[in-house]
């Protein structure tokens, strides 16, 4: 026998109360002088035994009543007993709704089977059972309204997220531990997808702990899948996406199944419409991955959905992936020339201008990148906000007013690229842009120009610009300015072959900053005449331009946080899931920040594109989510692993059309409070009757 409120067993000490009262009463007598003792003595002698017996009976009844009351409060539970009215069952049902539960079965999906199983489990509970229903990511409050729980089962959504089922079990078990019930049951309805259990050893240990006080049922649904092709990566190769300018998209496809696949078509869709011919992967061995290269063209300015799709298989969530890309008609770059020179070719920005617009003069007006060259003296009249990026090329000093404007411009989303050179005076940059505004994450060394000797550069570890090392290998660097890192955050993008910093990348407000410590012309290196220079300059610009759309492509389940113009703060916005036009939109309000407004959205469970309609804005914003790649492996827990779990977990398998009512048949253990309450009432009645009867004169 167990007790649900063991602490209240201390109430058994109250059994001493009637005894104490009895003993105290025996000591408390009123003294009365008396003459007719003879008759009194006879009467007492005649009744003494009866009175003692009555006293004992009453005392026993009172003690028993209090003992029973204390036991009742402690809520005893008799194991191996069933069918006692008033026994309470507390249960938690976790229905796995991770991406793998979307796997197709004969007639439905694994999640549909899981919902059926959950309904069957629910129908096996006695009335009054407290049931907490949870998906893999969200738990409802426990409820005694089984109809409400049944309705909630049908509302559990399919997601494309990766689940941590150990954590879900922990949460459900903690909820059950806090409940007072004779029977506690935890049901996990899942496909036993191996990737969702983390370390099996840890899972086994934790389940064993939980099963000490809670009856754990593992209900599996779904049949194993032998093949699954998945899009494991989708990368737009071009960093600048302009209207009607084809750009490359690199796609990685992985065979997660155990059978080889051949002639795998990879299709491209732009805004839902097929684009070009499908790329065919000839053969894909189990466990292998291959890349496909596709080309897309965005027809209009604004946001577009670029989707890559495989032929659908049983695990559909990873057969499509969408990214949102913004197309621009024109990208304007302001080149501030610190050393114009006598001839155009001698100017500091000559190579930069040609790298940004590598087309003949007559075609430059139609080219999407529009460089504009100004000298430092012209900056006062220049509206920085017209430009996507500002390049300071060997500019000697940064005027005080320009430094202020520049910091505001970058904070609002602009881009800044600084090239060093012989004219650049470190004190000016360090004082205004590094220390005062924190715009530059590093300071230039004030030592004399640091001759580096013939050196080359290599991409940093992450190669954020995606540059080809071989192309960079031919570039010779003769001079540079030293860079001194402070406490501000930055990422190295290029390093010299001795490990020294060459290029840093950092964020400032909504904008992006690159610092290159060598020159943009041929003064300190021959980079400008090497093939690597054009992609280098364009990718710097692409990173700056794309930075505004950074965070618009997230993994399913991640919280979307996208910064927008500060003027949009407080505006209402409605978010629609584009794959389901009939779905209701989610209402939200753009939050305010110091220099921007923020769109925050956490209901990103389904993979695909979402549309955000912001009040007052004519063009909608798009963003996309992708299914978790961790869900793509079709591997399930093996029979050996399930056998080990079966030592302490009730294992059952739910097939479509399984017989209802198979759950709860073995439920044992009954709470005895109801019979105890009746007994207490009976004892109370007996006490009243006996007390009246015994106190009658005899």
């Amino acid at each position, binding site marked *: 026998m167990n007790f649900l409120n063991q602490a209240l067993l201390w109430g058994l000490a109250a059994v001493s109360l009637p005894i104490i009262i009895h003993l105290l009463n025996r000591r408390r007598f009123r003294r009365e002088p008396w003459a007719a003792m003879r*008759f*009194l003595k006879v*009467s007492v002698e005649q009744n003494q035994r009866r009175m003692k017996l009555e006293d004992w009976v009453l005392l026993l009844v009172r003690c028993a009543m209090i003992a029973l009351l204390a036991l009742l409060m402690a809520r005893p539970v008799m194991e191996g007993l069933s069918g006692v009215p008033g026994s309470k069952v507390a249960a938690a049902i976790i229905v796995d709704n991770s991406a793998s539960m979307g796997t197709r079965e004969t007639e439905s999906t694994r999640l549909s089977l899981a919902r059926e199983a959950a309904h069957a489990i629910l129908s096996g509970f006695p009335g009054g059972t407290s049931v907490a229903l949870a998906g893999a990511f969200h738990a409802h409050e426990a409820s005694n309204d089984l109809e409400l729980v049944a309705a909630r089962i049908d509302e559990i959504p399919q997601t494309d997220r990766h689940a941590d089922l150990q954590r879900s079990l922990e949460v459900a078990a903690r909820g059950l531990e806090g409940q007072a019930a004779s029977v506690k049951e935890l049901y996990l309805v899942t496909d036993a997808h191996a990737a969702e259990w983390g370390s099996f050893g840890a899972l086994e240990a934790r389940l064993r702990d939980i099963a000490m006080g809670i009856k754990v049922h593992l209900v599996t649904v779904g049949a194993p899948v032998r093949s699954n092709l998945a899009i494991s990566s989708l990368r737009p190769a071009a960093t600048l996406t302009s209207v009607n300018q084809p750009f490359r998209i690199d796609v990685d496809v992985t065979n997660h199944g155990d059978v080889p696949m051949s002639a795998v078509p990879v299709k491209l869709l732009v805004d839902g419409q097929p684009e070009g011919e499908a790329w065919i992967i000839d053969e894909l061995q189990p466990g292998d991955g291959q890349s496909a290269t596709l080309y897309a063209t965005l027809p209009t300015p604004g946001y577009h959905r670029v989707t890559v799709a495989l032929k659908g298989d049983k695990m559909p969530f990873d057969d499509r992936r969408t990214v949102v890309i913004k197309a621009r008609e024109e990208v304007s770059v302001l080149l501030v020339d610190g050393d114009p020179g006598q001839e155009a070719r001698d100017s500091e920005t000559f190579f930069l201008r040609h790298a940004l617009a590598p087309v003949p003069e007559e075609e430059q007006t139609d080219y999407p990148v529009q460089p504009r060259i100004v000298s430092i003296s012209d900056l006062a009249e220049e509206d920085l906000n017209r430009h996507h990026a500002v390049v300071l090329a060997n500019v000697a000093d940064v005027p005080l007013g320009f430094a202020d404007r520049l910091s505001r411009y970058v904070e609002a989303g602009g881009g800044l690229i600084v090239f060093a050179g012989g004219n650049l005076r470190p004190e000016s940059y360090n004082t205004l842009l590094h220390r005062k505004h924190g715009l530059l994450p590093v300071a230039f060394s004030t030592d004399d120009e640091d001759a580096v000797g013939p050196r080359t550069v290599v991409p940093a570890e992450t190669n954020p610009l995606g540059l080809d090392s071989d192309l960079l290998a031919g570039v010779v660097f003769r001079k540079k300015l030293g860079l001194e890192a402070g406490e501000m955050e930055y990422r190295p993008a290029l390093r010299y072959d001795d490990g020294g910093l060459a290029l840093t990348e950092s964020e400032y407000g909504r904008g992006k900053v690159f610092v290159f410590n060598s020159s943009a012309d041929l003064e300190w290196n021959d980079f400008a005449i090497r093939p690597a220079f054009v992609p280098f300059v364009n990718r710097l610009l692409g990173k700056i331009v794309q930075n505004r759309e950074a965070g618009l492509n997230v993994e399913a389940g991640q919280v979307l946080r996208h910064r927008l113009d500060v003027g949009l703060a407080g505006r209402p916005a409605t978010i629609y899931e584009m794959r389901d036009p009939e779905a209701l939109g989610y209402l939200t309000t753009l939050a305010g920040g110091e220099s921007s407004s923020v769109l925050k959205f956490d209901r990103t469970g389904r993979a695909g594109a979402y549309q955000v309609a912001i009040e007052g804005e004519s063009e909608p914003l798009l963003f996309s989510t992708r299914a978790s790649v961790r869900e793509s492996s079709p591997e399930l827990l093996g029979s050996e692993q399930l056998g080990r779990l079966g030592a302490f977990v009730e294992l059952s398998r739910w097939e479509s059309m399984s017989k209802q009512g198979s759950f709860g048949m073995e439920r044992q253990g009954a709470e005895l409070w109801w019979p105890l309450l009746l007994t207490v009432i009976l004892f109370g009645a007996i006490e009243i009757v006996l007390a009246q009867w015994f106190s009658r*004169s005899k």
Partner: protein
Amino acid sequence: MDAETRKLLDPRAIARAEALGMNARFIVEGYMAGEHKSPYRGFAIEFAQHREYAPGDDVRHLDWKVQAKTERYYIKQYEQETNFVAHLLLDGSESMKYGSGEISKLEYGKMMAACLAYLILHQRDSVALGIFDEEVQEYLPRSDNRDNLFRIMDRLAGFEPLRGTRLAPVLHGMAGQIKRKGIVIVISDFFDDEEELLQSVQHLRFKGHEVILMQVLDPCEIDFPFTGNVEFEGLEDLPLIRTRPSQIKKSYHREFEEFRERLRADVERHQCHFVGARTDQPLDEVLANYLTFRKSTAG
């Protein structure tokens, strides 16, 4: 001046005795004022003459022989006898101290004795007084002198109980001591051995005495109204009894009533008279009871 005289002159004793005497006189004469006939006439008297019957006369005194001869109604009239003796024996044991109200059984008994003494002396009979517990503690020999009344009152008023009750030896003793036949009136609660008591009463009857047993009881002794846990402390050095009275009330009532009925029946079986009194009962009712009895016996 001897001790007896000094005691009589003690102002407190005089006050006590006078109070008792005054009370007795008040009670007796108050009772007499309501009666048409003299209580002094009617017992212990010799025939004097006839008188013609008048309405209101007791028909028991009609002379039927004269009526048979003359066909007229005549009442027999008697002369008082002056040498009648009444022995008042008052139980002064500790059990008589009990009183739940304003008055104890002993105080009530004293008042009864005082009233009877007053009544009898005014009838020009003799009264002897004995106060006893285990033995006779106070005794005033018989006297028909009304001046003796104060002495009786004084003895009654000044008596304080100290010991337990032993009725039988006392009555046996009195039966042996009293030479002249008379009325022996015993005032007590009679909480004593019934068998021995009856033997002693029989002894008195054997000696030719009229015996009247007047039982004085407290209302609580009859009703037993106690509740809760009570520790009864015996007034005659009896051990304590702890009990819950409400649970034995019926049993007590049964025992007590059986005792009273048995005593009454046994006493009457021995041609004695039994008068029961409660201390919350007016004394004149008790006196009326007594005088009714006397009239019936004299009639």
